[in-house]
C-alpha cells in the first residue's frame, strides 16, 4: 500500500502543450512516472515528450487507461478541466494551476467529492513517492527513497525541507504538497490518515503556514488518531498577519490561525516542533535513530 500514487498510477497531463506542462511532463518521466497521455483541445494526434496528445480527457482515458490527472491549464479554465477529468472517471487530480478563484474551487471540490474523487491543490506542487511515481512539479533531485512522510502547505519550502532530510541520508515514502489556497481539495486532516495507515511511512513531517486553521484541525486529528511520530514546522512567525477575509474571517477563526496557536496545538498534540526549517532534519534524524534502535 502507498499514499495516493504508486507504480500503477497512469497520468494524463491536462495542458501538456503549454510551457509548464511540457517541462514537467519530462520531469515526471525522469522521476519514473507513467505519463500515458496529454490533453490540449485541438492538438489531438501530436506528441509531447513521446506522450500522445488527445482533444479530451475522455479520449485519453479510453485510449490509455489514465487514472490520475495533472492539471496545468490556466486559472480561467481550470474548473472546466477538473470537471472534465471527473466526468471522464479520473478520481485523483493534482491541480498545479495557481490563482484559481476560490468560488471555482468550491464547485470543483464538492463536485469531485460527490463523484468519489480527490483533488490535491490547487496551487500546489503535487505528490511524489520516490521510486514509484510523481504527479506534479516537486524537483526530482530533492528526494531519496525512504520512510518519512511529508505533508506541506508550502511549495519551495517543501523542496528545501525534503532536500534537507535527504542530505541527512534519510528518505521519504510519499510527499504531498497540499497548496496554500484558501480552499484546498486535501487538507492536513485528509492527508494525515493516509500516512498513519501507510505501512511504508514511519514518521510524519508536517509543514504549515500562518493563516486559516488547517494546522489546528490537523493537530486535533493527530491528538486523537495519529500514533506515528510527527515533526512540525509553521512558517510565518515573523510575518504580518494576512488581512484576507477581513472581520468576518476573524469571526470564523476566532483566536486561531497565528503561528503561536498552531505551534501550541501541534505541540499539545504530541508533535515535535521545529522553530526553523533547518531544525527539521535533525529532529527527524533523532527519531529515525530511536526507531532503528528498537
Amino acid at each position, binding site marked *: 500500500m502507498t499514499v495516493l500514487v504508486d507504480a500503477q498510477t497512469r497520468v494524463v497531463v491536462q495542458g501538456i502543450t503549454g510551457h509548464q506542462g511540457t517541462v514537467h511532463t519530462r520531469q515526471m518521466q525522469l522521476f519514473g512516472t507513467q505519463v500515458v497521455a496529454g490533453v490540449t483541445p485541438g492538438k489531438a494526434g501530436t506528441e509531447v515528450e513521446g506522450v500522445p496528445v488527445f482533444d479530451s480527457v475522455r479520449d485519453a482515458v479510453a485510449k490509455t487507461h489514465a487514472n490520475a490527472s495533472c492539471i496545468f491549464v490556466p486559472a480561467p479554465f481550470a474548473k472546466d478541466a477538473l470537471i472534465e477529468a471527473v466526468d471522464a472517471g479520473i478520481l485523483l487530480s493534482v491541480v498545479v494551476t495557481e490563482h484559481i478563484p476560490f468560488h471555482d474551487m468550491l464547485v470543483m471540490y464538492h463536485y469531485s467529492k460527490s463523484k468519489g474523487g480527490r483533488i490535491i491543490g490547487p496551487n500546489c506542487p503535487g505528490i511524489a513517492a520516490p521510486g514509484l511515481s510523481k504527479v506534479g512539479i*516537486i524537483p526530482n533531485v530533492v528526494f531519496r527513497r525512504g520512510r518519512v512522510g511529508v505533508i506541506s*502547505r508550502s511549495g519551495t519550502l517543501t523542496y528545501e525541507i525534503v532536500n534537507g532530510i535527504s542530505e541527512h541520508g534519510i528518505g521519504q515514502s510519499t510527499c504531498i504538497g497540499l497548496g496554500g489556497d484558501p480552499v484546498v481539495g486535501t487538507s492536513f486532516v485528509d492527508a494525515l490518515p493516509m500516512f498513519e495507515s501507510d505501512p511504508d511511512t514511519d514518521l510524519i513531517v508536517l509543514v504549515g503556514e500562518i493563516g486559516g*486553521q488547517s494546522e489546528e484541525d490537523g493537530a486535533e486529528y493527530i491528538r486523537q488518531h495519529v500514533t506515528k511520530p510527527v515533526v512540525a*514546522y509553521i512558517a510565518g512567525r515573523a510575518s504580518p498577519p494576512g488581512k484576507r477575509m*477581513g*472581520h*468576518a*474571517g476573524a469571526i*470564523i477563526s476566532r483566536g486561531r490561525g497565528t503561528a503561536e496557536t498552531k505551534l501550541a496545538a501541534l505541540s499539545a498534540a504530541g508533535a515535535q516542533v521545529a522553530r526553523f526549517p533547518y531544525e527539521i532534519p535533525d529532529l527527524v534524524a533523532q527519531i529515525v535513530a530511536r526507531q532503528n534502535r528498537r
Partner: protein
Amino acid sequence: MVKLAEWRGKQLFRKYGVPLPKGHVARTADEAAALTRDGTVPLPCVVKAQVLAGGRGKGGAVKFANTPEEARAAAAAILGLEFKGEKVKELLLEQKLPIARELYLSVTLDRTLRVPILIASAQGGMEIETVDDAAIVRVPVHPFPGLAGYEKRRIAQALGLAGPAARALDPFLVALWELFVREDAELVEINPLAVVGDGLVALDAKVIIEDDASFRHPEYDEIHDDRTPLEEVAREKGIAFVQLDGNIGVIANGAGLTMATLDVLKEFGGNPGVFLDLGGTDDPKKVTEAFLLMARAKPTAVFLNIFGGVTRCDTVAKGLVEAMKEVPERERFPLVARIRGNNEKEGIEILRAAGIVSIPTLRESAQAAIAAAGGKA
C-alpha cells in the same frame, strides 16, 4: 483583494435588490447642497466619507444635516480629511431613517468546511469581533443547492425577527448569497442592517471581491486599494511584494520559504523591511524587474534566499547580475545570497563572477545578511 467603497458596494446591493436608504454620491460641497435641495437625497440626511477604513462615526467622517446648507457644511468639513491615511474624495449622502434596532449580517468563506458561511448577529452596528460568540450564529451553505429555507429561518430567528420583518429579511439573504457567488466576493457584509418599522434597510455595505477572479471582473480594474505605490507596481508585474518597517530586503521564492526566511532573520535580531516573493518564475527578466523594485525600496542590505525547483538557480543569478548593472553605484547595497537546488552550481558560479558570495546554510547566510545591514536592530 478589491475592497469596494460603500457606495460601490451599494451599487451592487441595488443590482441584487437589497433595500437601501435613498442616497447619492457627492464629490463637492456644492453637489451635496444641490442633492439635498432638489430632493434627490431627502432631509434629514447623513453625510459619510467614502473611505475603506472602519470607525468613521467616531472619527468625524460621518455627519448629519437637516438643511441643504448643513449638508454643504458637513460635506465641506469631511471632504479632504485625511482619515486613517486615506484622503476623502467622495461622500455618500443618504436619507436618515428612524432606526429601531441594528443587526449584523455577512457572508464569507469557511475554509475548513469549504463552503460559504452566513454570519448573523442581533448585535449589529459594532465591530463583529467585539460581539460575544454566543450572540453570533454561523450558517454554512452548500454551493450546489444554495441557500435553503431552513437556513434562512435559522438566521431570522438568530436576528430576533418574526412576521413581516422575517419576510423582509428574505430578499436580503437571497441577495447576499447571489452577490457573493456571482460577483466572486470574498466578503459581503451589512453592518448595520437596520430595522425600520416593519422593514429592513442596509445602512452600510462592505464588499470585497477576490483578486483571483479579477479576470471575470474588468469593471474593477480601475479600483486600487490600500497598497503602497511600490506594492502597486509589484502587483502589475505579478510579484508579491510587501513593505514592512525594517531595513533588510528579503527576496525569496515561494510564500512559505519567504516567511521562513523572515522567521530566521527575526530570530537572529534582523529587521526585515521588504519582502518579495519571486514565485515560480523562470524568466530572468522578471528577476531583474523584481530586483530593481527592491532597489527602489532602499534597503540597507538585501538577503536573497532561493531554492531552485521550478525556478532555476542560474536563471535567478543571471537576472540578478543584470539588475545590479542597472542600479547606479551610489544606490547599491550589500547583497547576501543563498541559492540551493536546481542548477545550484551554475548559479553560484554566475554570482561569484559578479563578486557575490553565496552561503549554503540558511542560518549562516541570514546572520551574514544581518551583519551586512549593520548588525542587530
